[in-house]
């Protein structure tokens, strides 16, 4: 039982990161009906920003500020930086193609993805950078219950990812921009006629979705340590899959899809095969899609009816 419990803890933590990435996909798709395949690379940029902020604050061995403050600044700067990057991507890669064919923004997204990966290669080199988390957060920090251990970093990542998800849900439902976002998702033409500044709302959408990816990137760095220019590809694909399984365009669906993906992956590794865990995970997800083509919570989506 403790074995199952430990694998669930592992899976939920990983799933939290996937869910944050999935939310970015779902927000952009909900408003613009485009698949932002550069999203995984925005996540990579967020991880790098967090890393360089850490280095700027004295590095993992001798931080010049308290560790909690350092981590807070890492998250804030990474989210702000990736948020602004999201706005730039929207302005130059998607807005000119807004009234183009459906395939054009997709190709543009792939181009941005390759551009970001190679820009990171040029700027930061191909070296794998390490957050070296154990230097400032002890690996023995955490607690055990019934032989299930949850360490400090995992607990922090899990709690923060859930907090960000619920924060996003409140923002979408409780703010003027959030309501405008839902209105555009429902009927863009009507929203324009009602005086909603579509460009401004789309900018906000990209800012928020990219900021979430930035937060996920820092979480990845804290949790798995390694950061490199190619790190966004697989998590990006998994985040996209989570969004589709949950019902793309649906915020609760993205959360559920991400957590489910993480748990299934962890259980597949724990009980079936570590080597083929991705195969098992994606096979199961195909089954889900066959049974629920709109995703698990697709009916509740904020997509255009």
């Amino acid at each position, binding site marked *: 039982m403790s*074995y199952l419990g430990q694998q669930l803890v592992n899976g939920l933590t990983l799933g939290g990161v996937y869910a944050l990435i999935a939310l970015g996909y779902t927000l952009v798709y909900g408003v613009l009906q485009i698949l932002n395949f550069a999203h995984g690379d925005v996540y990579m940029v967020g991880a790098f920003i967090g890393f360089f902020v850490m280095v700027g604050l004295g590095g993992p061995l001798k931080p010049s500020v308290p560790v909690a403050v350092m981590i807070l600044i890492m998250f804030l700067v990474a989210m702000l930086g990736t948020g602004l990057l999201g706005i730039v991507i929207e302005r130059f890669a998607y807005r000119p193609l807004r009234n183009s064919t459906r395939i054009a923004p997709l190709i543009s997204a792939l181009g941005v993805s390759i551009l970001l990966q190679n820009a990171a290669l040029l700027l930061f080199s*191909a070296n794998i950078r*390490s957050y070296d988390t154990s230097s400032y957060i002890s690996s023995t920090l955490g607690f055990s219950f019934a032989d299930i*251990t949850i360490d400090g970093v995992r607990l922090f990542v899990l709690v923060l990812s859930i907090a960000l998800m619920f924060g996003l849900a409140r923002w979408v439902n409780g703010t003027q921009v959030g309501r405008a976002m839902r209105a555009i998702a429902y009927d863009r033409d009507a929203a324009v006629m009602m005086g909603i500044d579509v460009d401004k709302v789309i900018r906000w959408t990209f800012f928020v979705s990219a900021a979430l990816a930035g937060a996920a990137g820092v979480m990845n760095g804290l949790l798995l340590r*390694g950061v490199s220019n190619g790190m966004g590809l697989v998590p990006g694909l998994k985040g996209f899959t989570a969004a589709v399984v949950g019902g793309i365009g649906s915020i609760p669906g993205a959360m559920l899809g991400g957590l489910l993906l993480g748990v299934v992956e962890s259980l597949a590794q724990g009980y079936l095969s*570590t*080597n*083929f865990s991705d195969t098992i995970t994606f096979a199961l997800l195909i089954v889900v899609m066959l049974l629920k083509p709109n995703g698990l919570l697709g009916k509740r989506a904020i997509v255009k009816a």
Partner: protein
Amino acid sequence: MKKTTRLGVVAASAALVVSGLTTVATPATAASCSGTIAIIAPLTGGVAFIGKEQQGFAQLAVADYNAKNGTSFNTKDYDTQLDAAQASTQAPNIVANKDVLGAMGPAGSQEVLAIGGLLGANNIALVSPSATRTNLTAGTFPNFYRPIPNDGLQGPGDATYMAKTLKAKEVVVIEEKTAYGTGLAKEVVATLKTLKVKVTNIAVNEKNADYAAVVTRVSKTTNFVFVTFQDAAKSEQVAQELIKQKKKAVVFGSDGSDQPTFKTPGTLVSAFAPDVTGLPVAAAVVAAYKSTYKAEVTTFGPPAYVAAQVIVEAAGRACAAGKPNDRAAVLAEIAKTNIKQTIMGNALSFTANGDVKGGRFYIFKTQADGKRKLVA
């Protein structure tokens, strides 16, 4: 003829004779000796830090040879990203480049498997500084050489050290599903079983990023987790995850983990090369590398220097023998390699299969201050 004129002719004739003798004795000094040493390495991608170091050391080896002998050999880079498919796309480019006389690399065993045949068919020697899979020198690739020992020494050596010296009773082997990881894991598992150690083999995908689920599978009675990653950050993650999940097992990394990022105190790592930074014979090269590339020296760089040295010296000898730009002649000369002392401190010659004669692995233990100490 005036006496001075006669003397001049004699002197000129003598100079010509001496010049001719010099040409015969050390003909590699001829500026006409030129050609390209291909550097096949992971210059981008997740383990580019390995490729960059190999590239730097290989370039230094060729530059050193040119400086000493007045030759004009050069290098050309071929990036493989440590990926067999990427290596396969580069192989035809290497073959098509008529200036290429031999190749330093590739870094990984899977890449040798992918391109060794094509390059061999075109008489291009591969001298790899880090491909350790045992069967690469089983006869399939007569053009393949390596100045480092193979996993036939590493796997059994590491397993024997765990079982006999460290008295391990239970070991988990994490086998990364690559040509390197699978071959090495097979050697380790077989030796541990022979030595009556309980072994659990866990195969993992190369793309896997989170090893928490894998560590959960490690029992609390396990003494060692032997990892076959080619990315030391993964080995470090496993070591830290074991601490987090309150398991006593110690991580033992193969040479793929021999990087500064794998630094948890108490962990062990085997390496195919010694730490050359303290060797007088390597001092000049180490200093040149640090000043030129502004990077630290690990165990991946020096074998690349030796590998490139083997090729460029063979190319020089072939040129001196009147066969410049002749790949087959260079390949034949590589087999005759006999370096009295390399920058790794050893003498170097090859067996008929292309393995280094008298090779050995080194086992290091990470100390509390993060530094490594040679233990075997």
